[in-house]
C-alpha cells in the first residue's frame, strides 16, 4: 500500500486511534481511511475510484463495508476511522460481501467483452476483481450501451468510453494533481462519459499517468497500443534519464525492445507519477544508433574495429596530452562523469573539462563549486511540501523539472506553501501552483533579488523556506551571486535545479575545471592529496592550474590552444554561440566523440565510439536534491559499453593506469573519497547585470519546453503532437501596440524568425520564445541568448512563409 505522508517531520505527534477490522484491533493514525486500515491487516477491499493520492470520491461503491452502528454499508475509501470503530469487510460480513458483489455485477453490466483486444487485459483491476468478487455468470440479458471507439482525447491518449467505469480517477488526476482539468465527465446516467471540450484536447504534460491509473482499459496510449501483453514483458526498475527530477520508472521490455515505461511508486521522489516525456520518449533507445566505432580516413569516416579505433584515439590523445579538452554532456551517469573527470586529470593530465554543454558562465561555475557541489541532501521534495514559501528563480518547473512542479502544486493545494517566481511570465504553470510573479526582466533577476519586497524577504527567513534556482541563472550576470547571498542572508535553503539528469552528478563527480570530485578544489593541497590517493597517483601528477571551461574551452579549441577534444553526449545546438561551437569542433586538431546517436559532432570527429544508452548499462543519476537514483541494466546482454568503460579502454591503450571502469568499482572508489569538509572555493560576488534595450526592442525570455526538439524525444510522433504550440508570447499591451498581429517577425542579432503571436501574462517589454522547439531555436534562428534585445515586426499572413 501507499501511505501518503501528511507530516513526515513529526511522526511522534501523530495521534493514534484503535479500530477493529474483522475482529482484529489495530492502531492507526487518526484520519486513516477504512480501506487503508484494512490493507494494514492484509484485507484487500475491492476498489476502482479509490487512489491514495487522489481525494476520495466514493463513486464506484465497490468498496462497501459494514460499519457497526451505521444502517447502510459504507464506502471504505471515504470512511475515516474513529476510535473504537468496528469495521467488517467482505471477510467477515455477508452484507459487505453481497454489496461488493452487487456493485461488481453492475460494473460489468455495460462493460464490453473487449478483454481479448484490450491493452489492459492481464493487468486489469476489473478483470481481477471480477474473478475475486464477481459472479461466475451474468444475469444481464439486455443490450449494452455503445459508443464510438476509440476516440482521441489527445494525440497520445485514446479513450474507449464503453470500457469506462466512471471511477473519475483520470478526471480527478487531471484536476487535482496535474492542474490540467481538460478531462471531464460529460452527460449523465448510463450515458456518462469522459471527454474533453471539442477545441481543447488533453494536452497535459502528465497525461500518461491517467493511462496508468485507469482501472480498466478505457484510457490507452497510442505508443503502447496492442504492443504486448503483461505476461510478455520483463519489468525492470529504472531511473528516468530525461531530467533532473529523478523519477523512478518501470521499464518494460519484450525481446530486447522497450515497449513502455511506467511511473514506479517512490513516495519520496515522484510519488506515483511521471511526465509524458519520461513515459513516452524512449524510441530513441533503439532507433538511429551508432553501431560500430568509426575512424576518419582520407577525410571520410569509416567503420572500424574496436582495437583500431582505440589505437587511433589513444595516439591522437597522447599527442595532445594535457592540451586536450573534455566535454561531458548531461546524459552522463555519475559513474560516467566521474570516469571523464578522472580520465582528463589522470590519463591526459588536463583540467580543461566542463559538463555544462549549454549556456554557462564562470560566475555560475564558482557558485556551483562553492554552494552546490558535493553537498549532502538537505533540500528535498518533502521540504518543498513543508515549506512556508518556495521561491523559484530562472526556473519554469512545469517545463524544466515536472516532478518539482507536481510537488509544488501539491504544496500549494495544501494551503501551506506560498510560491513566488522571479521571472518575466506568469505562466500557466505558475497559475497551477497558485504562484505569484515577481516581475524581472530576463537577465535582470539579480537586481530584483537584491531589492525583494519586505514581506517576501521576511517569509524567506521562516524556517523551512526554500529557494530553487534553475540552470538558466547562468545567463544572468550577478544572478548566482545574488541567489547565494539571499540564501545566506535569509537562512532559506537553496537548491539548484538543473534540467538534465546528469548535471548534478557530473558536478559532484568533478567534471568541471578546477573542481575535483565531491566539491574539492583543484588548488587545495589536502583535496589534491585525497583525490590523488584515491586515483593511485601522486598529487603532483594532477594538473596544477585551473583549466578552461565554458566558452573559453570552446574558444581555446577553435584557436588551436587545445590540440584535442573528447566529447560525450554533446549537442552542438545546445551551445548559445553556434558559430563558436561549430568552429571549436571543426577547428580542433583531434576530436574523439563518444555518442549513441549520430550528430553534427560525430560528423566532425576523428574517432567515434558507440556507447551504451541507459537501458544498456547500470549507473546512477543524482537528481536535483543530490539524491542518488541508481538503476540497473535492462538489457544485460547488450554489446554496447558505457562511456566509463570506453574511456578505460582508451586509457589502457594509452598505457595510462586508470582505476576501475566498471560501475561497482567506480562507485567504490568514488564513495571512498567521502564527504569533503574543507575549502569549497569563494562564493562569487558579482555586481548584477541589467538588460539594455532600445525603445522598440524587447528583452528575450526563453527556456526549453518539456516536449521540444530534444534528440532523445525522436521517434515518438504522438508525444511530439502534444507539445505546446510554438509561438511568441507577449503581453496584451505589447500585442496592442503592434496592432494585434497574428504573426510577427522576431529579429535577433543573428537572424530572424516568423512565429504566431500568443498573448500571455508576460511583463511588458519582454517576449518569450521557446529555446529549442520544432521550428524555433533562439540560438540557431536568432543568434540571440536569453536577455538579449530583439525587435518585432508585424507580418501579414501571406508573408509568413519561408522566413
Amino acid at each position, binding site marked *: 500500500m501507499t501511505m501518503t505522508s501528511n507530516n513526515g517531520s513529526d511522526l511522534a505527534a501523530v495521534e493514534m486511534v484503535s479500530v477493529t477490522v474483522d475482529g482484529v484491533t489495530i492502531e492507526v493514525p487518526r484520519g486513516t481511511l477504512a480501506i487503508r486500515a484494512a490493507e494494514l491487516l492484509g484485507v484487500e477491499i475491492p476498489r476502482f475510484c479509490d487512489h491514495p493520492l487522489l481525494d476520495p470520491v466514493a463513486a464506484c461503491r465497490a468498496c462497501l463495508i459494514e460499519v457497526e452502528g451505521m444502517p447502510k454499508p459504507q464506502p471504505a475509501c471515504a470512511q475515516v476511522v474513529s476510535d473504537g470503530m468496528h469495521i467488517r469487510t467482505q471477510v467477515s460480513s455477508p452484507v459487505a460481501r453481497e454489496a461488493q458483489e452487487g456493485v461488481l455485477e453492475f460494473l460489468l453490466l455495460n462493460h464490453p467483452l473487449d478483454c481479448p*483486444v484490450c491493452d489492459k*487485459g492481464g493487468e486489469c483491476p476489473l478483470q481481477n476483481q471480477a474473478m475475486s468478487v464477481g459472479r461466475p455468470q451474468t444475469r444481464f440479458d439486455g443490450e449494452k450501451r455503445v459508443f464510438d471507439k476509440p476516440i482521441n482525447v489527445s494525440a497520445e491518449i485514446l479513450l474507449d468510453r464503453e470500457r469506462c467505469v466512471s471511477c473519475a480517477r483520470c478526471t480527478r488526476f487531471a484536476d487535482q494533481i496535474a492542474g490540467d482539468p481538460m478531462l471531464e465527465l460529460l452527460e449523465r446516467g448510463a450515458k456518462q462519459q469522459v471527454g474533453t471540450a471539442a477545441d481543447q484536447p488533453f494536452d497535459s504534460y502528465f497525461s500518461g499517468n491517467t493511462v496508468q491509473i485507469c482501472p480498466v482499459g478505457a484510457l490507452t496510449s497510442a505508443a503502447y497500443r496492442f504492443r504486448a501483453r503483461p505476461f510478455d514483458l520483463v519489468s525492470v526498475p529504472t531511473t528516468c534519464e530525461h531530467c533532473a527530477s529523478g523519477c523512478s520508472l518501470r521499464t518494460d521490455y519484450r525481446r530486447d525492445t522497450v515497449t513502455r515505461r511506467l511511473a514506479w511508486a517512490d513516495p519520496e521522489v515522484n510519488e506515483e507519477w511521471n511526465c509524458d516525456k519520461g513515459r513516452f520518449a524512449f524510441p530513441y533507445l533503439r532507433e538511429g544508433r551508432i553501431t560500430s566505432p568509426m575512424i576518419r580516413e582520407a577525410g571520410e569516416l569509416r567503420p572500424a574495429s574496436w582495437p583500431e579505433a582505440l589505437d587511433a584515439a589513444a595516439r591522437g590523445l597522447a599527442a595532445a596530452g594535457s592540451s586536450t579538452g573534455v566535454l561531458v554532456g548531461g546524459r552522463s551517469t555519475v559513474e560516467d562523469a566521474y570516469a571523464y573527470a578522472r580520465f582528463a586529470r589522470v590519463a591526459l593530465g588536463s583540467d580543461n573539462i566542463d559538463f555544462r554543454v549549454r549556456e554557462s558562465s564562470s560566475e555560475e561555475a564558482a557558485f556551483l563549486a562553492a554552494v552546490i557541489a558535493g553537498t549532502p541532501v538537505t533540500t528535498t521534495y518533502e521540504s518543498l511540501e513543508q515549506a512556508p514559501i518556495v521561491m523559484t528563480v530562472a526556473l519554469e518547473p512545469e517545463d524544466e523539472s515536472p516532478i518539482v512542479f507536481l510537488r509544488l502544486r501539491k504544496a500549494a493545494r495544501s494551503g501551506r506553501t506560498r510560491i513566488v517566481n522571479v521571472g518575466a511570465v506568469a505562466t500557466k504553470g505558475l497559475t497551477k501552483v497558485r504562484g505569484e510573479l515577481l516581475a524581472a526582466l530576463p537577465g535582470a533577476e539579480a537586481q530584483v533579488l537584491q531589492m525583494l519586497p519586505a514581506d517576501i524577504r521576511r517569509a524567506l527567513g521562516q524556517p523551512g523556506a526554500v529557494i530553487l534556482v534553475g540552470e538558466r541563472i547562468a545567463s544572468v550576470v550577478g544572478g548566482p551571486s545574488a541567489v547565494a547571498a539571499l540564501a545566506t542572508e535569509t537562512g532559506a535553503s537553496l537548491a539548484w535545479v538543473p534540467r538534465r539528469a546528469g548535471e548534478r552528478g557530473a558536478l559532484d563527480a568533478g567534471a568541471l575545471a578546477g573542481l575535483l570530485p565531491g566539491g574539492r578544489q583543484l588548488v587545495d593541497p589536502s583535496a589534491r592529496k585525497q583525490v590523488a590517493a584515491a586515483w593511485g597517483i601522486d598529487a603532483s601528477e594532477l594538473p596544477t592550474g585551473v583549466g578552461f571551461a565554458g566558452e573559453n574551452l570552446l574558444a581555446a579549441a577553435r584557436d588551436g590552444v587545445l590540440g584535442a577534444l573528447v566529447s560525450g553526449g554533446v549537442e552542438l545546438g545546445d551551445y548559445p554561440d553556434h558559430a563558436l561551437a561549430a568552429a571549436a569542433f571543426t577547428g580542433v586538431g583531434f576530436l574523439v566523440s563518444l555518442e549513441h546517436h549520430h550528430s553534427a559532432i560525430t560528423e566532425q570527429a576523428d574517432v567515434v565510439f558507440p556507447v551504451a544508452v541507459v537501458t544498456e548499462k547500470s549507473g546512477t543519476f543524482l537528481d536535483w536534491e543530490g539524491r542518488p537514483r541508481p538503476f540497473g541494466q535492462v538489457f544485460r546482454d547488450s554489446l554496447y559499453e558505457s562511456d566509463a568503460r570506453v574511456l578505460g579502454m582508451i586509457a589502457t591503450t594509452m598505457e595510462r593506469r586508470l582505476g576501475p571502469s566498471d560501475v561497482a568499482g567506480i562507485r567504490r572508489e568514488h564513495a571512498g573519497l567521502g564527504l569533503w569538509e574543507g575549502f569549497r572555493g569563494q562564493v562569487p560576488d558579482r555586481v548584477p547585470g541589467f538588460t539594455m534595450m532600445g525603445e522598440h526592442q524587447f528583452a528575450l525570455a526563453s527556456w526549453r519546453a518539456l516536449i521540444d526538439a530534444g534528440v532523445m524525444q525522436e521517434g515518438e510522433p504522438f508525444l511530439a503532437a502534444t507539445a505546446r504550440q510554438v509561438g511568441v508570447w507577449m503581453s496584451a499591451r505589447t500585442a496592442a501596440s503592434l496592432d494585434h498581429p497574428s504573426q510577427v517577425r522576431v529579429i535577433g542579432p543573428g537572424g530572424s524568425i516568423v512565429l504566431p503571436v500568443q498573448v500571455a501574462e508576460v511583463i511588458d517589454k519582454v517576449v518569450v520564445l521557446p529555446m529549442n522547439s520544432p521550428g524555433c531555436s533562439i540560438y540557431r534562428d536568432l543568434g540571440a541568448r536569453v536577455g538579449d534585445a530583439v525587435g518585432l515586426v508585424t507580418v501579414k499572413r501571406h508573408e509568413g512563409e519561408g522566413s
Partner: protein
Amino acid sequence: MAELPQAARGFGVTFFTMFKKVVTEQYPEDRDKYPPKPRFHGRHQLNRWADGLEKCIGCELCAWACPADAIFVEGASNSEEERFSPGERYGRVYQINYLRCIFCGLCIEACPTRALTMTNDYELADSSRASLIYEKVDLLGPMLPGMLPAPHPMVPGLTDSDYYAGKVKGSVPEQANDRPAAGGLGATS
C-alpha cells in the same frame, strides 16, 4: 534332444504368422488409405471470415495458454487504409514453433474468435530449426471461393459485431482493393 520339438514349435509360430493379415501401414506410400481421425491434433490453421478478413485479433490468449511457450504473437492496429481483421486489432506477427508445440490444443480452447484451429496435417518434419517456426503466412487458411485476400475493408455497412454474429457470407465487390476475389458469393446480412 528334448529341445528340438521346442525350437520347432517356435518356428511354427513364425510360420503361421506369415499367413496372418499384416498391421503395418506403409508410409508414405499408403498414407491416403489411412487418414487420421477427424479430431486428430495436427498442424494449426489461422482461419478467415467468409470475405477473406482474418479472424485472428492478435490477442495472444493462445500464447498465454500455451504450456510449451511455442506461440509468439504481436498485435497491431487495423486502420481504415489497411484492415486485416474486423475490429480494432489484428495479429501482425504470428509464429508457432513446432519444435516446442506439444499439440495439446489448449491454444484452440483459448482462442476467443475461433481463429486458431487444428488441421489433421501431421507431416511436420524438416531439416532446420528455423523452418519449423511457422509464420503467419504458413498458418493462414486457404483462400476459399468468395474470399478476398486481406487487407481490405469490412463489408460496407457491417461492423465487427456483425462478423461475430455470422452475418457475413462472402465478399462484395466494394471490398476489392484492386485484387480479384476468388469468385464472389456476395454478403447476405
